[in-house]
């Protein structure tokens, strides 16, 4: 099986001031697979996710020990430009956050500031089609993104992320603010997207993780307890702690 490792952490410890959020984490994410990170609230999932595109840089008192390798290179090395990293590793947030601009501008802004030359119309349309939103908005691309529903806004944010043609898309509980129907659409979209992108998704919804991911990592209180194929984790996990969590005995 040609399972290439695209992001890898080595002895990663993340802390806010003196308080460690993630302890000594070693994990490998495979290319073109969906990996879910599950665990109870406050176990460090989102902190870990944000480290991969250096969004934690914006938080004061944040410390990193250990390495985060993206295609073999440590992203926290002084040579690495966080802006460049964020072009290649995109992010979709928990609460949809489209820009207060038109739908068209939302998608084209990122590519434009990064020197995009080419057909803007084509790029926007393709991204909207890939995000499963084109049919619903094709005749109002110039209307404000703020007029869309929650689920549509989130798909717009996904379209905005893929407009940058990243290699990895990080998703932080992308469906938790949406109703069940919108959630279903997002999940179908994720399964479709993994053909072209690597997706790492943090979710507190275990059934969602079970439905859409190829691999699952279980974090508890900052430690990686178990990591493996989603199939195995949900039928016969190795660690008792994992089993207790996914059967709802705690957390």
């Amino acid at each position, binding site marked *: 099986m040609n399972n290439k490792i695209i992001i890898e952490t080595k002895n990663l410890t993340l802390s806010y001031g003196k308080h460690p959020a993630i302890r000594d984490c070693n994990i490998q994410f495979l290319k073109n697979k969906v990996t879910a990170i599950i665990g109870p609230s406050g176990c460090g999932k989102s902190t870990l996710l944000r480290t991969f595109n250096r969004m934690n840089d914006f938080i004061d008192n944040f410390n990193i020990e250990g390495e985060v390798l993206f295609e073999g290179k440590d992203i926290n090395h002084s040579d690495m430009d966080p802006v*460049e990293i*964020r072009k290649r590793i995109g992010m979709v*947030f928990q609460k949809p956050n489209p*820009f207060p601009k038109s739908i068209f501008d939302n998608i084209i802004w990122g590519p434009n500031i990064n020197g995009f030359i080419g057909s803007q119309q084509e790029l926007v349309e393709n991204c909207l089609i890939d995000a499963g939103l084109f049919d619903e908005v094709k005749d109002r691309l110039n209307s404000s993104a703020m007029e869309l529903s929650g689920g549509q806004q989130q798909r717009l944010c996904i379209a905005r992320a893929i407009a940058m043609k990243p290699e990895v898309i990080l998703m932080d509980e992308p469906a938790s603010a949406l109703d069940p129907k919108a959630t279903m659409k997002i999940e179908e979209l994720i399964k479709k997207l993994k053909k072209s992108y690597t997706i790492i998704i943090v979710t507190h919804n275990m059934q969602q993780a079970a439905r859409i991911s190829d691999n699952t990592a279980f974090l508890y209180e900052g430690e990686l307890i178990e990591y493996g194929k989603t199939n195995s984790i949900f039928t016969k996990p190795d660690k008792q702690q994992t089993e207790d969590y996914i059967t709802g005995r705690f957390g």
Partner: protein
Amino acid sequence: MNDILSRRKLKAKIFRIIATISTWSSIIILIILLGNIALDGFSNINWTFLSSFPSRFPHKAGIKAAIWGSIWMLALVAIIAVPIGVSAAIYLEEYAKKNKLSRFIEINIANLAGVPSIIYGILGLTIFVRFFQLDRSLLAGSLTMSLLILPVIIMAAREAIKAVPKSIRLGAFAVGATRWQTIQSHVLPASTPGIFTGVILAMSRAIGETAPLIMIGALTYVAFVPENINDPFTTLPIQIYNWVSRPQVEFHHLAAAGIIVLLVVLLTMNATAILIRNRSLKKYKW
């Protein structure tokens, strides 16, 4: 049970009556004041009044010099104070680390906004008029007034920038934008209505201030329109003050007319500020 309920109802009723009286009394006092002035000065408002220079003769005097002086001053203050104020706000909100030093600066700016305007006048006199030897020019006056309203602009701009949700910035960073690109494309456009509103309100303060300008020596009898920034000047409030201090009653009527003009300008500026704010609320529904 019913006793307690009826007592409570009575209390509520009394409170409503007090509140209504307070509101209406303020309005009534305002109406009386304005009415008084209007009666006094309305008859004097005509084209002669607006287009003449001041004179020793009441029937020939006008506020042309004062209007132009105010316009020049406002324009200069805008050019000086707005860029500095907005840039300072951007720096403080977006770039500065949140530590003791920045808290210290924040508190001091808030304090400066409350310093009596005459202190700014003294400051302006010492620095701009004497030290930089700008004499009693428009430039000196505008610089002084800029200092006066700068804290107000900085605070208003900061609030407007703070009101832009963090999620918008994060969304911009996540597509590979630098901080400046984020500020330029998202934060500033979204906070512009708020900044604009703040600037207009600051300006309406500037147009009405008299004490600092008198300190730096803005003349009270100016019979010309300033031609460049080094010329001496006068403003509406100063002209009104000048007329009120004359013994002749006719000049008092002229002063009333001047007050009406000033009020109209102020009301227009405030109305514009409110209109802008309302329109922007529709666009930026956070």
